[in-house]
């Protein structure tokens, strides 16, 4: 029996490895192509094998094609700005829906969840009208504003709070804590895995976002990474310089990849805890 169990285990590992390979192929190709010399003559463009003479020329051209320092800074500002406001709003709203008793609570909550059903492009014009009305057109704040509240985040935090036994809060109440103290000193520390999981989803989504920043930003000084990348790599009517595209994409994706590698264990634990996949 142990032998059979051992076999099954190897089989599982082999299958997982195969799936992992399929998932990582685009990343692998991106890395290899980014360092490959420009060459349309050969068929090796699509090859996953690294070139024998790696070059940094693609990176030089990509860096020369856009002001990456500014793009990084803008993207960081947008992601950090959105996340910090979101953490406040989703925590408070999640607490309200999880713990406070008020009339129509569940109805309001489900209405809130309905937002998840709306395709974002539908909201471009109404959002833009609001942004112009607020005098925010063509500012980084305008890129962030529509995301300050998040239905997904509220849902996640509500579920997270509900898994925390009430005993903790009751103990705090006995000690004389008010609701704000309960949220800040008891629930938030216990809900940290949920917040980390939400942070990853939020930062990845806004780091990669293209359409809304393109709509609301006109001044090149306010562009984010995705727009900067697109401005020199995309072409509808023509072929592409794959090496430069790969290098540019590498530059855009690298910070997220690095962050994920560094904090991998914590991320995985958070996802397991919160049930987000």
């Amino acid at each position: 029996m142990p032998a059979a169990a051992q076999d099954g285990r190897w089989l599982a590992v082999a299958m997982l490895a195969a799936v992992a390979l399929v998932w990582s192929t685009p990343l692998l190709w991106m890395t290899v192509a980014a360092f490959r010399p420009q060459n349309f003559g050969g068929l090796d463009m699509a090859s996953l094998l690294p070139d024998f003479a790696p070059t940094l020329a693609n990176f030089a051209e990509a860096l020369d094609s856009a002001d990456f320092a500014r793009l990084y800074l803008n993207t960081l500002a947008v992601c950090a700005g959105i996340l910090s406001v979101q953490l406040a709003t989703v925590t408070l709203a999640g607490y309200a829906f999880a713990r406070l008793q008020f009339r129509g609570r569940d109805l309001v909550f489900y209405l809130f969840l309905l937002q998840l059903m709306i395709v974002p492009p539908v909201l471009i014009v109404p959002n833009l009208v609001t942004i112009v009305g607020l005098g925010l057109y063509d500012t980084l704040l305008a890129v962030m504003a529509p995301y300050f509240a998040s239905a997904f985040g509220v849902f996640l935090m509500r579920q997270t709070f509900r898994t925390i036994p009430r005993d903790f809060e009751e103990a705090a109440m006995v000690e004389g804590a008010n609701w704000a103290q309960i949220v800040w000193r008891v629930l938030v520390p216990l809900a940290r895995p949920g917040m980390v999981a939400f942070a990853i989803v939020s930062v990845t989504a806004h780091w990669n976002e293209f359409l809304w920043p393109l709509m609301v930003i006109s001044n090149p000084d306010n562009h984010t990474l995705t727009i900067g990348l697109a401005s020199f790599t995309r072409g509808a009517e023509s072929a592409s310089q794959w090496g430069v595209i790969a290098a540019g994409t590498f530059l855009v994706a690298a910070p997220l990849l690095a962050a994920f590698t560094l904090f991998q264990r914590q991320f995985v634990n958070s996802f397991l805890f919160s049930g987000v996949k």
Partner: protein
Amino acid sequence: MQTWKSLVAAGAVSLSASLAHAATEIELFFPVPVEGKLAAEMKNLIERFNTEHADIDVTPVYTGSYDETNIKTRAAIKAGRPPAAVIMSANFILEYQINGEIEPLDGLIEANGLTADAYMDRFWPALHGNARFADKVWAAPFHNSTPLLYFNKEHFVEAGLDPENPPATWQEFVDAAKALTVRDGDRITRYGFMLPGNYDYLGWIMTALTMSNGGQYYNAEYGGEVYYDTPSMLGALSLVRDMIFTHKVTPEGVTDGKAVSTAFFAGDASMVMLSTGSLSFIRENMGDRYGVAFVPRNVRNAVAIGGASLMMPKGLSDDQKAASWTLINWLTSPEISGHWSRFTGYFAPNRAAYDLSEMKGFLEANPDAQVALDQLAYARSWFATFNTVAVRKALEDEVQAVMSGDREPAEALAAAQAKADEIMRPYVEQTALKLPQ
């Protein structure tokens, strides 16, 4: 007291100085539809414009692809922040006119002492249909293209074909594609012909094939009709199906335009149908190993133009309008038009560009650019209707299904026609079907 006075004086001086130099600030939305450092070159051009025009300060705003530029422009207009000028896909102009969102240029043209006829006469006749309609001039052509047949000369020689005599008819075209395809048993190692199957590009290539087959594709006079379910379109789509599934000279499924040109560079495809906008890029990568030819004909030579025009949204101040008009005239001048054409491969819409010595020398050195220009004589207006993008996608989805082997041409076209009619219905009901009570 003294310092206070001098401060005020200094303030007044700097204020009047800044007033004197208060340039009219405007924005130009521009898409990057082709590969190459187009975004960088557009910024160079606008910098040059700004130095030459001290009273105008233009900000060039990159706005993505043609479709994204369309979305952003529409949203900006609806939000009350219209740009002063937009380089807009030439076939989207009609919708802005239908929606009443752009300024006719006639008043500005007359203020320059020109008639609308004289103004339009600057541009190639094939470009007039997408710029001047409903009795007014709505746009100024900026860079334009037609689809071309690019072929690999070395493969032609290898296959015993004459590279100086590329296929001109569909029969010659299919024969050449068969001769050029290389097989290793059942596996195809080199395709005789490839065409881009991605949105926008596919619709445009289908237009070229249908028009070469005698078709009109759409009603150029009225934005509520397309001719999808017709013999001319059926012939064109059947040709594509046959090349994939009967002759097996074209890969099955949807190939992106970028992948098509990459396959051409790599020698994996011997003939491809791509835009003149790719000409400079292909020249850079293929050297003298390629040739270009007209899109082959079945009934006649005909293709649709592509490319973009400059248009002016409504809602601008008089100063902005004047600045925008100066910019539009500068960008479409023979000199800039010619420069942009040599940089990209698009032909210059302004005919006078070809009288300049730089352009004459360029055409002599690059006869392939001359072929593109010659085909202009057979070019027609580009498909434009109410809700152009959705009507176009109605066809493209069905053509893609045929290319993947999921649908037969006849049923695909019937479905595409029904879908397109449904999309145009609101407009048709407001116009052609709005009858006296």
